[in-house]
């Protein structure tokens, strides 16, 4: 058994490419679990970070610092009455959230958390991701239609128009990154997610800095388009609360609604991981060309452990600051226990064999987490675009710039 695991750990291809069904299955389960935890954590973090931006505390009652709030919410959603509007198209209403959630999870098949840490490595990985994630608009339209109600219908119309328009700008930005990956002796690029990161590794720069500022502009276009693509603020028109109450999922409640919620957050993580893969060097650690040598390698490999120790320290600090009243005893103990768990994870991450193997996953997650923070930040600061302005930004600003960057990248690539 141990031998088997070790033989896998030393292999240098993804389980999908190796044709190893068992490991592929293990990866799918791991990604599903990790994603669910990430969505739960994201839910809590969003509420806390947004709350602190807005000078309030956010959830504080369920568990210490509201740590158990997402679990309580999930439980509430699961045991809620399953309501289906009498006038709704039953089958479509039933199938719409499934489509949305399925597409949101399926894209993670090709997301490379490390050179070997992906379910599979397709040679059309980027295409697969964009294609599958754009299928979710189908679920949105179906949800809006099947509800047989005005607000969801307008929400669905808006979101289909929005997602389709921004996909074009997004695609152009992606193509320019793919073009950059073809700058090697063979002169052929790749659409494989792993291949693109490896191209950045061999060219010695992340694509965001390549042909400065071309890479940066393409990245910014993608970063804007991906917010629109996931229907988040300031492009959250399909679910604009003040206009359309809740947009396409107005009529949904309970478990079905939670599927939309789950899909929205995993879609955010999915597009963020595309951005990280294409422009921010995927799993590569920062300064991998400047700060070289075994010392720097060691320093950077300590980061995962240190991160968890810092989190643990924050937990312990909060434990000290908890009220001393007996009512809070269980919460205080829980928080301390959480801190201990984090500290233990941190210590385990310092062990050399673990340290080297989690590095790539760690850097990938950190970069994605940065995008997640951006999402929350946008939501806290920006008003919402109007529909015509949204379209204007998509078609009249992002699209021409995208084409220009693509042409410029091609020209510069040919010249050098």
């Amino acid at each position, binding site marked *: 058994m141990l031998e088997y695991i070790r033989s896998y750990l030393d292999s240098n291809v993804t389980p999908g490419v190796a044709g190893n069904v068992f490991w592929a299955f293990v990866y799918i389960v791991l990604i599903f679990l990790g994603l669910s935890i990430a969505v739960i954590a994201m839910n809590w973090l969003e509420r806390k970070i947004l709350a602190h931006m807005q000078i309030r505390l956010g959830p504080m009652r369920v568990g210490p610092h509201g740590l158990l709030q997402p679990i309580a919410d999930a439980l509430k959603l699961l045991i809620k009455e399953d309501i289906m509007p009498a006038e709704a198209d039953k089958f479509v209403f039933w199938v719409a959230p499934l489509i949305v959630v399925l597409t949101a999870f399926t894209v993670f098949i090709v997301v490379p958390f490390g050179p070997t840490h992906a379910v599979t490595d397709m040679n059309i990985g980027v295409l697969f991701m964009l294609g599958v994630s754009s299928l979710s608009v189908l679920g949105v339209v179906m949800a809006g239609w099947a509800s047989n109600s005005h607000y969801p219908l307008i929400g669905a119309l808006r979101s289909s128009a929005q997602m389709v328009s921004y996909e074009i700008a997004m695609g152009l930005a992606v193509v320019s990154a793919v073009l950059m990956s073809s700058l090697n002796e063979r002169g052929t690029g790749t659409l494989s997610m792993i291949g693109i990161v490896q191209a950045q590794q061999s060219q010695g720069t992340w694509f965001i800095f390549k042909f400065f500022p071309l890479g940066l502009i393409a990245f910014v276009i993608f970063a804007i388009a991906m917010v629109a693509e996931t229907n988040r*603020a300031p492009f959250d028109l399909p679910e604009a609360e003040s206009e359309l109450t809740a947009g396409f999922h107005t009529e949904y409640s309970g478990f079905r609604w939670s599927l939309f919620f789950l899909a929205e957050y995993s879609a955010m993580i999915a597009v963020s991981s595309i951005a990280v893969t294409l422009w921010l060097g995927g799993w590569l650690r920062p300064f991998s060309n400047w700060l070289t040598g075994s010392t720097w390698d060691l320093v950077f490999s300590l980061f995962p452990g240190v991160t968890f120790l810092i989190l643990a320290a924050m937990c312990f600090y909060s434990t000290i600051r908890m009220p001393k009243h007996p009512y809070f005893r269980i919460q205080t103990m829980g928080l301390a226990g959480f801190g201990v768990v984090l500290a233990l994870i941190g210590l385990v991450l310092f062990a050399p064999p673990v340290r080297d193997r989690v590095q790539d996953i760690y850097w990938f997650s950190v970069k994605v987490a940065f995008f997640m923070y951006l999402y929350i930040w946008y939501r806290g600061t920006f008003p*919402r675009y109007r529909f015509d302005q949204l379209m204007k930004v998509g078609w009249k600003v992002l699209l021409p710039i995208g084409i220009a960057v693509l042409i410029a990248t091609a020209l510069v690539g040919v010249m050098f």
Partner: protein
Amino acid sequence: MGADQPGDRERTMSDSTGHISHLELGDREQTFLDSNELVINMGPQHPATHGVLRVILKLDGEKVLGTECVIGYLHRGVEKIAEHRTYAMFNPYVDRMDYVAAVSNGLGYCEAVEKLLNVEAPPRANYIRVILTELNRMASHQLWLGTHALDIGAITPLFYTFRDREEVLKIFEKYCGARLTTHAFRIGGCLYETYEGFEQDVKKFVDFVDPKIDEYEELLTTNRIWVERTKGVGKISGAECKALGVTGPVLRASGVKWDLRKAQPYAAYSDFEFDIPTGQNGDTYDRYLVRMQEMRQSLRILRQAIERIPEGPIMAKIPKVLKPPVGEIYHSIEAPKGELGYFIVSDGSTQPYRVRVRPPSFVNLQALDMMVRGQLVADVIAVIGTLDIVLGEVDR
């Protein structure tokens, strides 16, 4: 939803917009999806209609072809109640009309009855009135800013403005025990002398909130999305405002320099120096800027009032039982939302024969249809927000 109630409502909508087109569909049952025009009920339960306003929207896609406001969901018969209460007993009721600017309501009513009785509040009472009313104007504008920004999608300013509005409410609470429906003034002056440290509290508030207004402006004034969402939206000219009777910041943002505090000074307003901020374009952005400037002007008035507040009695000599002479009076003040007028008819008894309120929100709401026709659904939200209506005052 609109499709549930065809017939009368449908017909009024088509009349008001001039045309209606229903496709010929043969035997199939018609649904709302079959016509190009969509009738949507926004409200009375809707997050952005500020209470229980119901707006029937006729849409062509996202474009608004016409609107119709249905009001009355919050009707409490305030004016009728007045006919069965003595003048003093009716005083607390007016606080419940525009509940976010209760002090202004009370001021208007008290001054109207004082005019009817032919008494004048002593100068110190007038100063206290000005201070509380201007504090209330701050609170009202802050609440407007927070909710207006929230409607347009900026969720953060709401919390900033509520944090600062809290300071105003604390002063009210210390002064008279109530935070929202204060019943701060009495006919003939004020009931309560200022509490110890009132001046310092107000001064502290003024110094505290001045940089906070910069903070709101930092979030919004130059924010690209905010400017795009508000510039050119819900335009109304000064002449149109006058024709509809629209007053307050909406009128001033259209370039008409009309403020009752200057035009017909009441209370102690003639003692203070302040400007009337005006806009030029009469769009939502100008209305936003005008209100932001008004907040600063309010602070200016507060600073002067605190400096110059005189000593003396706070209550004029008025009889225990109020029996105004037979006659009628119209008195109006500049409430945060516009001209708030009271028309009181006295038959010489202890109870008013008739009280008619001219609420700014109700009159301003008339402009909604004109301002949003031809614009998009999202603009309706922005315009409802920028009109700064309070349904308690619209319905009374």
